[in-house]
């Protein structure tokens, strides 16, 4: 069985989880534990001098042995994303970066032009770049050629819960790129995650689907199972679709 590997680190879990939007800090930690994820995303923000009692997310995730994946959420230009990535590397002692360069606040779709340019610079600066991108095979191929450690096309807009809107594109991307393929954004429920994995994705990154579920901890567990099931189904190989039935029971020796 092929391993799930990012930047020479092998992971057992193929689920990557976000840390935002949970009803409270306690439920967040419980959900992450239930998901079995070994990689968790965080954002970088200005320190509040007036904050002396905030919970230290970094320390908490590290205590649990999680790999921390900082993102560049909120950046609209390559320049801002590059600065954020450099700050994240310094603060969190990791060269991993989930590169997001957003083109528009309402849809949160990536700005491809800025994304490619930022990816180029960051790869040159020895970052392990995991770009959040459109489900566009050409963009994904270009990101791979630049030297990104993975490609992370969206299944649907961030937080929309619309699932994998264009499975055919994901399939083409799977055929085109050799680096790990991770669906990032759009997952609404467990079957969406399973579908992504059945299409041959190496992993799924999600946040809202768990954080905003009625029972986040239970949904986290469901996602864990879905990702495992989807991966197993992909490896097992689905049968071809066809229009007419084929009986599954023997056709001979029937009782006359």
């Amino acid at each position, binding site marked *: 069985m092929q391993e799930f590997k990012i930047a020479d680190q092998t992971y057992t879990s193929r689920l990557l989880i*976000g*840390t*935002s*939007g*949970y009803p409270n800090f306690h439920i*967040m930690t419980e959900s992450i534990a239930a998901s079995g994820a070994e990689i968790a*995303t*965080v*954002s*970088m*923000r*200005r*320190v509040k*001098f007036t904050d*002396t009692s905030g919970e*230290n*997310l*970094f*320390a908490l995730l*590290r205590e649990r042995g999680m790999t*921390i994946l*900082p*993102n560049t*959420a909120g950046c609209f230009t390559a320049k801002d994303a590059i*600065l954020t990535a*450099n*700050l*994240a*590397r*310094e*603060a*969190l002692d990791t060269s991993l970066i989930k590169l997001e360069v957003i083109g528009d606040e309402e849809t949160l779709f990536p700005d491809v032009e800025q994304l490619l340019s930022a990816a180029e610079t960051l790869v040159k600066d020895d970052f392990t770049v995991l770009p959040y991108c459109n489900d566009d095979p050409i963009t994904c191929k270009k990101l791979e050629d630049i030297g990104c450690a993975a490609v992370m096309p969206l299944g649907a807009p*961030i937080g929309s819960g619309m699932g994998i809107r264009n499975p055919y594109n994901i399939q083409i991307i799977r055929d085109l790129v050799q680096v790990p393929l991770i669906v990032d954004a759009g997952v609404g429920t467990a079957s969406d995650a399973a579908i992504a994995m059945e299409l041959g994705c190496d992993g799924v990154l999600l*946040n*809202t689907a768990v954080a905003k579920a009625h029972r986040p901890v239970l949904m986290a567990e469901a996602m864990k199972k879905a990702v495992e099931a989807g991966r197993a189904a992909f490896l097992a190989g689905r049968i071809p679709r066809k229009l007419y039935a084929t009986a599954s029971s023997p056709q001979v020796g029937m009782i006359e």
Partner: protein
Amino acid sequence: MNISVNGEEKTVSPDLNIHDLLTVLEMDPTQAGIAVAVDREVIPKTEWQTIEIRENSEVEIIRAVQGG
């Protein structure tokens, strides 16, 4: 001298290095998980004791928060 820290105007004594500035701001410079940029350039922790902040510098101090 006047500097900007995370977008806020602050008056601090001259000849401060980054380590001193954090102390003045009542932050623990040895804590894990923070990073500092001066005029959009990231300053590695190893240089916090040596690099001094100049008048009108724009200092950014950041840390990890919840994100997706």
